[in-house]
Structure formats: structure tokens, C-alpha cells
């Protein structure tokens, strides 16, 4: 199961976490959504993103 969790903050920023998608594919899961937003604040891939098969990946925007 693919699961995307977005936390919204009062200053307008968003934090996006993707679970159940391996490696770089997690970026693709949210890339189209990001294009609908304003300027990207930040993206911080964690070490989990590089664990191709074992763990879900997580991004912060």
C-alpha cells in the first residue's frame, strides 16, 4: 500500500512523507503535486530513501 501523509503548518509550509514506495520512486509520487504548489521550501531525503528494498522512503518539503 502506498501512503502519503502531508502535514500543513500555519505559515503555509507543508511536510510530505511517503511510505510504501521504494527509493527514487517516492519522489515521483509527489513530483506532480509539487508542481501545483508555489516555490518549494526544502527537500530533505533521509537515509531511508537509499534503502531500496527494505524500508519505505520519507521526504520533507
Amino acid at each position, binding site marked *: 500500500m502506498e501512503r502519503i501523509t502531508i502535514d500543513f503548518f500555519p505559515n503555509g509550509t507543508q511536510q510530505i512523507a511517503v511510505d510504501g514506495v521504494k527509493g527514487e520512486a517516492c519522489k515521483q509520487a509527489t513530483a506532480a*503535486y509539487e508542481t501545483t504548489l508555489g516555490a518549494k521550501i526544502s527537500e530533505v531525503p533521509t537515509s531511508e530513501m537509499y534503502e531500496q528494498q527494505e524500508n519505505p522512503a520519507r521526504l520533507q518539503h
Partner: protein
Amino acid sequence: MSHISQFEFQCSDLDALEKAAEACGCELVRGQKKYKWFGRFVGDSPMPKGLTEADLGKCDHAIRVKGASSQTYEVGVCKTEDGKFALRYDFWSGGYGLVDKVGKDGKKLELNYNVHHAKNFFEQQGYYTNIQTNQETGNPQLVAEKF
């Protein structure tokens, strides 16, 4: 006095904006071509970038406070050259109740817009979505799942 502020968040999803307005105790009136403000620019605050005095008070849609008095100002939803929308309002005296609803610089409206825009987007991509409250932060959280 007249002080026009232009929200800085990008808005491209009118359906999400409509739901965000409702969440703030307001309503989006589609096709309303004028928004309520002081009516005359007196030059005591900066003109928002890219605007002239002739642009003020004109809009493509408007957001008004539900049950507001006749004095309460409105938000103008104005189409921009890139096809998105800029949101403008007269913030003098809090817009006579408007700012209490949409937040300073429209931040309450922006927060709710972001939530509903994301919900709409991921539902269109085939996800099941649920809006909830993050128990740690108290802020809204969207969970989108695809099986």
C-alpha cells in the same frame, strides 16, 4: 483610508478555495466582479506589485464573510496572467471583521486552501484521502492511500 493587501500564496484550484472559505466561515461567490473595500486608494500604503489604482476593487470572484454586516470588506479573487489567482483585500481596520476570518495575510485561508487542494489533487490521482488533525502539532494532516 484604504490599504490593499495581496496574498502571496498561489491559488489555482477554485474548488479548494471554496471549501477553504467555508472552513473560515466565509463563502466564495463565483462570478462576482467587484469586492467590497473602502473604494478609494489614498496612497498611505504601498500599492501591491503589478497593480494600478484602476485594478482595485475589481475581481473575477469574491469571498465574503457569512452573516457579515454591510460594512465588512470582502476578498477579491483575481485571475492573473499565468491563469492562477491572486487574492486581494482592504485590510484597514481588519477589513471590519474579514481578517478575523481569513487570518492576517490570509494565513487561515491559505492553510485551509492547501489542505483541500491536496485532497482534491490526490483524489484525482486515485487515492483515498482523509483529513485529520496531527495529534502532536494540532495542525491539519492529510493521509492519501492507494492500494
